């Protein structure tokens, strides 16, 4: 087992509030790693720290043996971290193919290779017919696919998905799961944040539970959901709502 991503004692504070408190975890090459937790538990903050949009106040992040804690976000992309944001986030006034090609050009120095990769990623995510459209004309599912194409085109070692099933119908979510599984088998490691456990249970090899910035459990999905502490903070909270 080789670790692709190692997070050691990540701490992030906003003013007096501690959003992440010494969170440590490892992600193994080739697995699908789930992160769950109630709203405000620090999941998205954690992704922001891993991708570099936020600087941690303490701790260390290792990607495939390299320390990336102090690296700028765009350099991390080149090292193999790709990300899907919560809510659909694309460049709304650039055509679909440019949304993908700009990523390719940032990652590969060769223009021709970038173009080839772009058409490949668009084909894989079924967006070729809409390549010249503006993203504002796409359905939520197609927008997700655009974000997925953006991930594929950078040929990442690890992809971070922030609530990839939100806003999708169940059939659409199923095909998203198929895609994730497919590219997982082709060698991409995934970290998935999800609020709805239903989908995560199906694909995650391991999950970690965050609550108020603290890791409270980690393990196989079926074991974690039996953990009394998890039931209390997560499912307890859920039913009370």
């Amino acid at each position, binding site marked *: 087992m080789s670790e692709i991503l190692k997070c050691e004692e990540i701490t992030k504070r906003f003013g007096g509030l501690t959003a992440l408190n010494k969170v440590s975890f490892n992600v193994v090459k080739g697995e699908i790693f789930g992160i769950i937790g109630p709203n405000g538990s620090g999941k998205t903050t954690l992704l922001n720290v891993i991708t570099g949009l936020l600087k941690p106040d303490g701790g260390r992040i290792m990607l495939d043996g390299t320390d990336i804690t102090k690296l700028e976000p765009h350099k991390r992309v080149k090292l193999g971290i790709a990300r899907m944001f919560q809510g659909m986030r694309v460049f709304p006034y650039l055509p679909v193919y440019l949304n993908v090609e*700009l990523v390719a050009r940032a990652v590969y120095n060769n223009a021709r290779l970038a173009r080839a990769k772009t058409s490949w990623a668009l084909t894989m995510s079924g967006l070729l017919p809409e390549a010249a459209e503006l993203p504002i004309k796409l359905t939520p599912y197609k927008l997700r696919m655009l974000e997925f194409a953006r991930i594929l085109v950078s040929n990442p070692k690890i992809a971070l998905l922030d609530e990839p099933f939100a806003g999708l119908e169940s059939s659409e979510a199923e095909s998203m799961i198929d895609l994730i599984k497919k590219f997982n088998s082709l060698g991409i490691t995934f970290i998935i944040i999800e609020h709805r456990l239903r989908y995560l249970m199906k694909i995650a090899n391991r999950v970690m539970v965050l609550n108020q910035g603290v890791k409270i459990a980690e393990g196989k999905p079926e074991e974690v959901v039996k953990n009394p502490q998890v039931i209390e903070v997560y499912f307890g909270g859920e039913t009370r709502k």
Partner: protein
Amino acid sequence: MVFAKRSTKDLIIGKTPFFAVLAGLTLLPLLGVGGYWLDVLTKVNLFLLVTLAIDLYSGTTYYLNLGVSFTFGFAGYALALLNIYYGIPIEYSIFLAVPISVFFSLVILLPSLRIRGVYFAILSLLIPIVFIGIVTAQPFSLYLGGEGGLRYKQLFLDFARSLPPGIRLTFLQYSYYYISLVAAVIGYLIAYKIGFSEFGFMLRAVGQDEELAESVGINTLKVKVIGYLISSMYVSVAGALYASMRSPVTVDLVVPANTLVPPLTSAIVGGLGTIIGPAIANYMLLLTYESLWGLIGRWRVIVYMLLLITIVVIKPQGLVFRIYLDLKKRLRGVLLE
């Protein structure tokens, strides 16, 4: 379709308006346009560079750089100082003034490039104000000419003096006009190339969602700095050329009302980030402004500003660009029949 090539016929039709305007501007002096209007057109040609600079940077990244008039005036002052204190002829000062002005613009505004939105606009607007304060304040005013400005021999003046008196002024006007026209045409072609290149789209990506751009691997700081560099190069060239054709150089060049507002207006009315729209608007608006002088005299500023407000309020942006696309479509329809 994205990957399809445009046909040659399409390409020729697409370029028709450009060549028509170019031919028109080249032939104007031969058709008898001279004197006052030639001077005006010279100025409008140079202002095209400023309009394009604003469109290339602020129009794509939405970083509203109101410090443009600083760069414009600074290039003018650099030119004058090089000539007066170092005895460098104006012809060469132009080439030296541009890099100096670009360098200073970059150094002064670089730290603020990480500030977004209204703050960046405020900061950039304060810079020309500070510059005006420095130029007009003791003891700097002694060296920088204060309110009266700096006097020097303008471009080609020595040569013109060797000509018969009757054609001296005409020679200067014509040569200035064609220099400005060449600068405008080259500037436009390069701006078009950059604006719709991969780099141009990266600038737009930064404008649409900077955080996302950084997260997908675009080095946003680098993109912003290079964009700003190109933009200030355009403004510096315009400022240096403009100053080389008139003496003295005064703080009028730095006053935002003179050298920021007209091009900024053209960029917005023309359609931010479209290059073509702002270029057309530059000629339309500035020539309209000058024509108003004959029609309504001193009320022209008020009428022009009311017109401007009306355009901005009714069609928030891109009016000219939309009309242009529409006309082009019709033109294509006519020509392809």
